[in-house]
């Protein structure tokens, strides 16, 4: 492979990886933006999304086959189901603690993460599950570079979801309410906005996006397991911070950027695949220390 081949190949790989990071990062950023909660369980929501998609597709594929015709409705169903799970979690675990010290709600988030993670582990007896999708790896080959149709659809689907989210936030009344709450929750309450409803909606949308990423990961990689959410949760958080936490375009940008950085970083002869995660976390720490507001984040005066 020539250097150019490697660059094109890694550009594709980085975009795919970045798409997953972005979709998960959006949930982090939205929830953080609105209630200043670092939702530790968000990576596990992605994992649960993959498993819900797995169960649904197992049934749907007998009717509609295991191609895109079966995958698309399964994905939408999984997004809806996991969206409601997100709302449920928010209702049970987070809402009672919204006014409690920050430490309490953070610990609860860790607890929720453990519950989700271990529930799936118990149900699956810790086994990896083969995702029942039947997409081939036909695609376009240019020299040594191979790009499959599935990869193109993945990037396309991510773009569609992001545009939809952008329109939702920018154009609808709910989006407006979300933006308002992130600026001043108490004022919103006084203005008659049903704050609890909007927070629930935020969790719904964030969780759905994570579920979409989970199902897509299942389809794309072909195998899912109970701890697939841990590392991606950390990476997605890193992405959200890179872009500026609380900022929606920031999360999108941060995800893609981290995906590309990782893809190219690991091709450097002196980095190697074994230091890949150190690279990502190191970047996160440096960013948090030197530019905690990220690329597109607002400057924060409040201190906690």
């Amino acid at each position, binding site marked *: 492979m020539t250097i150019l081949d490697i660059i094109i190949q890694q550009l594709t790989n980085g975009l795919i990886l970045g798409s997953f990071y972005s979709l998960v990062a959006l949930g982090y950023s939205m929830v953080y933006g609105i209630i200043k909660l670092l939702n530790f369980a968000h990576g596990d929501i992605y994992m649960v999304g993959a498993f819900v998609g797995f169960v649904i597709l197992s049934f749907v594929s007998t009717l509609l086959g295991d191609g895109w015709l079966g995958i698309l409705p399964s994905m939408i169903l999984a997004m809806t189901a996991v969206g409601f799970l997100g709302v449920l979690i928010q209702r049970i675990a987070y809402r009672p*603690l919204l006014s409690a010290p920050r430490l309490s709600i953070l610990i*609860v988030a860790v607890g929720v993460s453990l519950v989700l993670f271990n529930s799936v582990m118990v149900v699956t007896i810790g086994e990896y599950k083969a995702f029942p999708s039947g997409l081939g790896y036909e695609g376009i080959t240019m020299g040594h570079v191979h790009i499959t149709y599935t990869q193109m659809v993945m990037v396309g689907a991510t773009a569609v979801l992001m545009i939809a989210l952008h329109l939702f936030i920018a154009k609808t009344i709910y989006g407006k309410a979300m933006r308002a709450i992130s600026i001043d929750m108490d004022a919103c309450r006084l203005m008659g906005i049903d704050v609890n409803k909007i927070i629930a909606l935020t969790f719904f949308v964030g969780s759905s996006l994570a579920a979409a990423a989970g199902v897509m990961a299942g389809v794309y990689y072909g195998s899912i397991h109970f701890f697939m959410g841990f590392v991606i949760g950390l990476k997605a958080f890193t992405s959200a911070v890179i872009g500026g936490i609380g900022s929606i375009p920031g999360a999108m940008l941060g995800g893609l950027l981290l995906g590309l950085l990782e893809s190219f970083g690991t091709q450097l002869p002196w980095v190697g695949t074994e230091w890949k995660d150190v690279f990502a976390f190191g970047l996160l*720490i440096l960013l*948090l220390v030197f530019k905690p507001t990220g690329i597109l984040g607002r400057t924060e005066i409040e201190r906690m």
Partner: protein
Amino acid sequence: MAEPSTPPPAAAATSGLAGLEERLFVFFDKRSRRRLVQGLLVLAAVSIPLVGDSYLLEILTNSFFYIVLCLGLNIVVGYAGLLDLGYAAFFAVGAYTTGILTSQFDWNFWLTIPAAVFFSIIAGVIIGGPTLRLRSDYLAIVTLGFGEITRIAARNLKELTGGASGLIGINRPSFFGLELNQIHHYYYVFFILVLLAVFVSFRLQHSRLGRAWQYVREDEDAAEAMGIDRVAVKLYAYVIGAVFAGVAGCFFAGKMTAISPETFQFMQSATILMAVVLGGMGKIPGMIVGALALILFPEIFREIGSVRMLVFGVVLVMMMIFRPQGIWPERRN
């Protein structure tokens, strides 16, 4: 001081359990009675090896080890109010210091302890120094990241750490010519560590620094306005917590004779944190109860095995919502 004759109005409405708590408090309020109970507990702990089998001793030694770790993390989370999700990294620093120095440089076990203290302080300053200025939730994720970096580094620095297989065949410590190789030796060693840790924790809690931590935890800005250097105070908590874990790690390496990066995964940090929260953040007896509960519960209810962490997760969430002070009740005065 609660007076038995005139219960406070709130107590009248509380459930039977809370009433019992109240009565226990009244009972233990006398210093002499508390001393008596403490003395009896120590006596019981000292005499267990005379009657218990090696399995019981193994489990209790393991509990002692977690009590020390919990007391250390308690300084960070309970006293100073900083969420640390990578505490296992400090425990790894201690364990690897002892492992590497004894097996590759032929150091005496006891000499590795000051070295481990030194490296724990360095690690605490490196991790804490730049990050303690951050908001608490950022700090949580940074510590998580550092925990992972430490584990991956331990796995990749093969020449020094033995890579993924870790260090095997670490020499056991000797004490005045007696090689510590029986489980009851370690039972007493870790028991002494617990006593030391309790003593240090107690003194810290009631020191000037302890009060400063409390102010910073309750209201950071107010504390700063009162002339407390909030970053320095947090850094002290962080570094002292690191030293607790580092020293515990030395003895862990000596007892197990084998360490590998897998021991220091995120789950290890989460487990310790869980014990701290369950026991009751900031309370020394709470740490003992929390660590004991964490180790004994799965041993007694062996069948639940894999459901263990699930149960703990649920308990953790419910605890924070319904009883944020933990198992050990709050002292009221």
